[in-house]
């Protein structure tokens, strides 16, 4: 890792690569995940799923299953008259269990609770469902034709987290949501152009493969609901559960132990409402632990078809961009409307564009629901935008780096009129990537290089709170609603608290992700935790310190001496007092505590949206095998422009992981539907990167202190994924003269393109 640091040094241990806090638990097997949570009397659930992509349910015969020894409850929609079955934070369209109709293969139809998993699975086999199959559609292109089967007879109610425009009429009943981004005079831009490029690009339907499948444990006590879940956003899940079961928010407790990977796929509500409903009918605590095959059918990423036109002048300056994006959202909206909103915002790229118009529709199909997935629209649209930057460079005789230098936004420049200015020096990032990649070094035959950029309006919304308690012995407890999903929040957040309080790191303890005991955080996603929860913890620390200084003045400086704050406490006269001594003095006892509060909203430094820009700057060198069509990525460069690295080792490790995930999606990963069913919905057939796919890595971490977060931090961890497919496509063009517009770039597709190239010669 190469570090470029121009920011002032923050107080230790902020900025230090301290070992991960979750290390000892995770390397000894003692770390608790949801599947390890067991309760007295806990029963186990299994789900009967639809074998049809689209069907009316005529009847369900559960008699034999109910009589099976060991079965506690058999639950269909008819057994839940007291539950609001439909949920959805963007569009309320998602039944927690099929209500009269199924809309994709794998939709839950019956839930069975038994003494153990095997008995529940046996009982699933004893249920008979009479379906009336309906015409179905599994492709966006067909879903928007006039006589396509309509998947939702009536549009679902739009909710507060919708993320899309409500005033645009649905062009087709299968359109779930629509988002538009537009500025400038687009027609004039294209009329005056020297060069217009046009293309259609496709990004595959992908599966995040968090290695821990979705799991939930639910229990009811005296009308209150407690759920343990593998969820990234416990407070969002709480809101949906409260709505489904008609409970006040305070009566729902969602706790998240360690999460076995998320990458966005565990954002928002998944199986928690169903698990809670099963526990309600069973009258027992219930665990529902999905298999990977079931998890694939629960949430996937949005496949995208992107049509983009770009207008350039003779010097390679962008004049305008016009695009349409269709996202395949599957059977239910889930979070796709927000993905669509972000895709529309991100298609232009981090460039100065006088005019832009992008329309993005999310489209229902009879496939598994799509939702958030690392990158959130950016990988999908960056393939289009960055491919055309390289194509324009070639047509105009410019170096691909030079055309980007000419167009890239300067620090502080606003991508669109009301957006926050770019909080990064992208030109400098490009040079760092070029240096690390060896841009000017000679290339071997059959090799090609490319560097691509992206900037994502990230951070979601600044709705975050934190509590920081200083105890009588001076130790600190931080309470934060952010989840440890592997990104390192359980290490980084205590680092921030220790630095702000001036206490040793081992005196800081963190409680997180429990709606019953820690305070509100909107979500753990959009790379927001270090930045936004970091700010909330800083605010809570400042609040605690201000109270402690006042207490010192009241209880220690009784002769009117000056109280001077110093790291870890105060000085009164010639004597130093640590925070614990002040607590003890104020309470006149070896007891008590002070509670600091931190609130973050759209105000002050976080008034402008987005809260920060997440930068992607990736370089690759590829070798193309003309015989097999295999693309071998031989070198991969990431530039992690994170403003301030609270823990540089963790930043680097996020960047490598993100880039490798991008490499998998660019070269191999794709869920394939055939005749309404998923052909490769398992880990045999859906191949993710392995150790042998790892290229030579060169990582750069850049800290210019230009983010909105503590000491100039801003988010990372998605950025290095977003441009990877575009970089591989552009490098492949340079290596072999073929322009790849449909990911993944499988050997078959590459081989085909090579043949077409040769035929055209």
């Amino acid at each position, binding site marked *: 890792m190469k570090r470029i640091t121009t920011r002032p040094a923050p107080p230790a241990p902020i900025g230090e690569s301290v070992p991960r806090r979750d290390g000892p638990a995770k390397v*000894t097997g003692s770390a608790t995940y949801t599947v390890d949570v067991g309760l007295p009397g806990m029963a186990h659930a299994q789900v009967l799923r639809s074998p049809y992509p689209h069907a009316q349910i005529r009847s369900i015969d559960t008699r034999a299953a109910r009589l099976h020894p060991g079965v506690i409850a058999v639950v269909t929609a008819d057994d839940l008259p007291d539950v609001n079955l439909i949920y959805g934070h963007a569009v309320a369209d998602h039944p927690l269990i099929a209500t009269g109709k199924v809309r994709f293969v794998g939709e839950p139809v019956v839930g069975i609770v038994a003494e153990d998993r095997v008995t529940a699975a046996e009982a699933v086999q004893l249920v008979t469902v009479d379906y009336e199959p309906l015409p179905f559609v599994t492709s966006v292109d067909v879903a928007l034709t006039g006589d396509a089967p309509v998947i939702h007879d009536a549009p679902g109610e739009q909710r507060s987290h919708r993320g899309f425009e409500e005033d645009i009429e649905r062009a087709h009943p299968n359109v779930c949501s629509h988002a538009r981004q537009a500025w400038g005079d687009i027609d004039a831009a294209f009329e005056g152009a020297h060069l217009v490029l046009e293309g259609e690009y496709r990004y595959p339907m992908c599966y995040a493969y968090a290695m821990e499948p979705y799991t939930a444990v639910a229990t009811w006590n005296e009308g209150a609901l407690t759920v343990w879940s593998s969820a990234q956003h416990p407070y969002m899940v709480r809101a949906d559960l409260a709505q489904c079961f008609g409970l006040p928010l305070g009566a729902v407790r969602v706790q998240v132990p360690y999460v076995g990977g998320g990458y966005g796929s565990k954002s928002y509500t998944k199986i928690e409402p169903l698990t809670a409903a099963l526990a309600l009918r069973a009258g027992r605590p219930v665990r529902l632990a999905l298999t990977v095959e079931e998890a694939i059918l629960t949430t996937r990423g949005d496949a995208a078809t992107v049509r983009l036109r770009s207008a350039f002048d003779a010097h390679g300056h962008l004049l305008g961009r016009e695009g349409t994006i269709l996202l395949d959202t599957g059977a239910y909206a889930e979070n796709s409307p927000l993905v669509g909103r972000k895709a529309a915002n991100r298609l232009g790229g981090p460039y100065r564009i006088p005019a832009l118009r992008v329309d993005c529709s999310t489209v229902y199909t009879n496939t598994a629901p799509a939702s958030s997935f690392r990158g959130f629209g950016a990988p999908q649209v960056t393939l289009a935008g960055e491919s055309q930057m390289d194509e324009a460079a070639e047509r105009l005789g410019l170096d691909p780096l030079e055309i980007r230098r000419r167009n890239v936004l300067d620090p502080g420049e606003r991508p669109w009129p009301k957006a926050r200015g770019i909080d990064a020096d992208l030109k400098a990032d490009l040079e760092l990537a070029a240096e690390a990649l060896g841009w000017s070094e000679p290339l071997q035959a059959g090799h090609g290089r490319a560097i691509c950029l992206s900037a994502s309006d990230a951070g979601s919304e600044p709705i975050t709170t934190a509590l920081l308690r200083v105890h009588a012995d001076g130790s600190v407890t931080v309470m934060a609603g952010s989840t440890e999903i592997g990104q390192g929040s359980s290490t980084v957040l205590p680092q921030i608290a220790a630095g702000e309080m001036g206490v040793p790191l081992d005196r800081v303890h963190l409680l997180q992700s429990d709606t019953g005991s820690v305070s509100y955080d909107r979500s753990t996603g959009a790379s927001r935790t270090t930045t936004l929860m970091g700010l909330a913890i800083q605010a809570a620390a400042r609040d605690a310190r201000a109270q402690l200084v006042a207490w010192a003045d009241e209880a220690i400086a009784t002769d009117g001496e000056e109280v001077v704050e110093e790291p870890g406490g105060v000085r009164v006269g010639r004597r130093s007092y640590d925070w614990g001594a002040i607590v003890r003095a104020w309470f006149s006892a070896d007891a008590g505590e002070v509670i600091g509060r931190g609130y973050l909203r759209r105000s002050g430094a976080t008034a402008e949206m987005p809260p920060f820009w997440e930068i992607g700057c990736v370089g690759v060198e590829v070798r193309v095998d003309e015989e097999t069509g295999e693309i071998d990525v031989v070198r991969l460069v990431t530039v992690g422009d994170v403003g301030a690295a609270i823990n540089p080792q963790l930043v680097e490790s996020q960047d490598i992981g993100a880039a490798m995930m991008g490499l998998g999606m660019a070269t191999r990963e794709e869920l394939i539907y055939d005749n309404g069913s998923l052909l490769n919905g398992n880990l045999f057939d859906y191949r993710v990167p392995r150790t042998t796919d790892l290229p030579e890595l060169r990582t750069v971490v850049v800290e210019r202190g230009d983010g909105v977060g503590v000491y100039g931090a801003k988010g990372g961890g998605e950025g290095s994924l977003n441009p990877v497919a575009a970089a591989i496509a552009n490098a492949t063009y340079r290596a072999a003269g073929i322009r790849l517009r449909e990911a993944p770039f499988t050997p078959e597709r590459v081989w085909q393109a090579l043949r077409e190239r040769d035929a055209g010669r």
Partner: protein
Amino acid sequence: MHEAVEVRLTVNDETRALRIEPRETLADVLRDRLSLTGTKVSCDAQVCGACTVLVDGLAVSSCTFLAADADGRSVRTVEGLASGGRLSPVQQAFIDYAAFQCGFCTPGMLMAATAILEEHPRPTREQVVRGLEGNLCRCTGYDPIIVAVLAAAVSDGSDGEAGS
């Protein structure tokens, strides 16, 4: 229901006599009967390596290995790596090099790495890469894991080199 069978397993040097059903996998027995929940199941199909344990020193996928087939044999799990309160060199290296994030693959990854190091006390990078090809990790991008295993080989008291 099937007839129960009696098995004697030595798990992390402790002998356990159990009555189990023939269909129970080693992962089921470790997790559900012995409360050794460190072993994780992901793909449940012998693809991902998350459930890797050592049976008589050989790395196996416990999700598809019948517990009855471990009768009379010695099983080692992630809970058995540390001894006397000290982490094994490869456990310590995983912490030092941040060779995990979510940690769900980590128990299996550690067991596979332990098997590699027992076979090749001073492995080359290529041996580590090949040896871990059957263990998936979705977080780290693998590089920190490979570096950690090579570093563990060096710190194991031998005089090998990391070769990274």
